[in-house]
């Protein structure tokens, strides 16, 4: 594992350069594997037909964390990976993914991670992924994550996804099929600046009675960056669906929010909320009366908003 990978791992996960990860992990570095470890209950194996891994969590596994970060450490890398998670019935685990792309050269690098989650009845997953771009090169840092989620009855998946900085272009697609009494929660936090572009697409089918989805995006668009947020929820049975896009625009930044809610059942209750605007002047004024400068107040408001 090279030093840039170690730095990126520290930024996108709770990686300790001295002790590494505890428990099951797989570290992807520039399309290769830089380390792997299984635990008693979590088995990671390479796919034979395409790049990527299968992660199998035994039924009833509780309290374990599996780390599968991916790092691109130089220009001119085009990485595509398929990672499939099979979460056994009644398991309750944390999955930490995340991706860092570093370029020092003029040519672009990109990571396209396609993650599929299959949760058996009653399983619970907290899925955390953090994306970051680093390096001084003019080459674009591109991360396009795709997540597909299939939730069987009474299962629950919460996805916390964060793009901190430095990613020039991202297209994020999250799709889900939610079974009876299962619930999908997605919390996205995005910060774009410069000439960056970020696109988020949520597509969820609520197919099981009393299923639910909660898709929440908070974002800040600075500089000349552009963001597009599209959420599509289909309520096909008695269910509850909620999506929200809450965005702060600064400088010349632009944000578009496009909801599409379809109720195919009389008892489908679907809600979309969108609030896009600049930082309220009274918020800046309030923090300035506490002794912060306008710049410090702005930074504190954004820090809190994306916390």
């Amino acid at each position, binding site marked *: 594992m090279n030093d840039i990978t170690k730095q990126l791992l520290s930024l996108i996960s709770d990686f300790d350069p001295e002790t590494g990860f505890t428990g099951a992990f797989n570290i992807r570095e520039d399309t290769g594997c830089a380390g792997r470890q299984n635990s008693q209950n979590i088995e990671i194996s390479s796919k034979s037909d395409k790049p990527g891994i299968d992660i199998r969590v035994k039924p009833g596994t509780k309290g374990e964390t599996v780390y599968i970060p991916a790092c691109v450490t130089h220009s001119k890398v085009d990485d595509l990976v398929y990672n499939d998670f099979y979460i056994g019935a009644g398991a309750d685990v944390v999955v930490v993914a995340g991706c860092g792309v570093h370029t020092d050269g003029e040519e672009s690098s990109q990571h396209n991670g396609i993650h599929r989650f299959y949760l058996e009845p009653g399983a619970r997953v907290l899925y955390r992924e953090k994306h970051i771009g680093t390096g001084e090169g003019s080459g674009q840092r591109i991360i396009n994550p795709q997540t597909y989620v299939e939730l069987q009855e009474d299962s629950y998946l919460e996805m916390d996804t964060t793009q901190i900085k430095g990613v020039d272009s991202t297209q994020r697609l999250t799709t889900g099929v939610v079974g009876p009494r299962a619930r999908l929660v997605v919390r996205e936090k995005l910060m774009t600046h410069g000439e960056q572009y970020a696109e988020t697409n949520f597509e969820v089918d609520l197919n099981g009675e009393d299923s639910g989805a909660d898709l929440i995006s908070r974002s800040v668009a600075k500089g000349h960056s552009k963001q597009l947020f599209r959420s599509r929820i289909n309520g096909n049975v008695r269910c509850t669906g909620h999506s929200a896009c809450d965005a702060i625009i600064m400088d010349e930044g632009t944000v578009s929010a496009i909801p599409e809610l379809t109720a195919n059942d009389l008892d489908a209750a679907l809600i979309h909320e969108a609030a896009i605007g600049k930082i309220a002047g009274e918020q800046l004024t309030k923090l300035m009366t506490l*002794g912060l400068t306008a710049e410090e107040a702005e930074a504190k408001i954004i820090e809190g908003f994306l916390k």
Partner: protein
Amino acid sequence: MLQLQHISLQVEDGANREILKDVNLTVDDGRFVVITGPNGGGKSTLAKVIAGILAPTEGRILLDGRDITQASITERAKMGIGFAFQQPVRFKGLTVRDLITLAAGSETLSDCDIGRYLRSVGLCPRDYIDREANASLSGGEMKRIEIAMVLARKTPLTIFDEPEAGIDLWSFGNLIDVFADLRRETEGSVLIISHQERILNIADEIVVLSGGSLTMHGPKDEILPGLLRGDRCAFCRGEE
């Protein structure tokens, strides 16, 4: 000591209205001064002028002899002016802990200290310290947090713009205690905009602002009787 010298404020909204007209006022150190008067009389505007949120079109503001008329909101805050808004501002993502810590100007404010400020305003620290100061809090809760923030600031001059507004369930006695504690701890001046007779009653001095002009100013014992009609204050909103 705060001195307002010939403060006027005109707004050009088509009618060239004069919100403040040649206001002269001195608030000595350690004094508890209540500004009262009819709605629309310029009280909140005057408070914002002192805090630097609005600039006067004429006149000078001196703090401890130093001309602060051109000083920014931030500079005045650093010089020791605290300001509790009439309408508290909400923040998505910032918690009560964040706001009180920012107000105290200390990164290392302990939970114990934050809890003390929250208890002072009648809020249970355990229930509120990690709550986001967003729309999930009621107007009354936000008002108490606003007051807790100025308590944490411990400034030599603290301005409250209608602190009683929205504090309906909290006993008024607690609010009076807060002012007493603040004076004791900071030994500073407190300037309160209020219509409430019970707040007027604990003032050292009362100022009446009406139609943008300072119409009366003097010790409470001289001014208050003139404001009262029987057992009611001329400017109070139904305290009976």
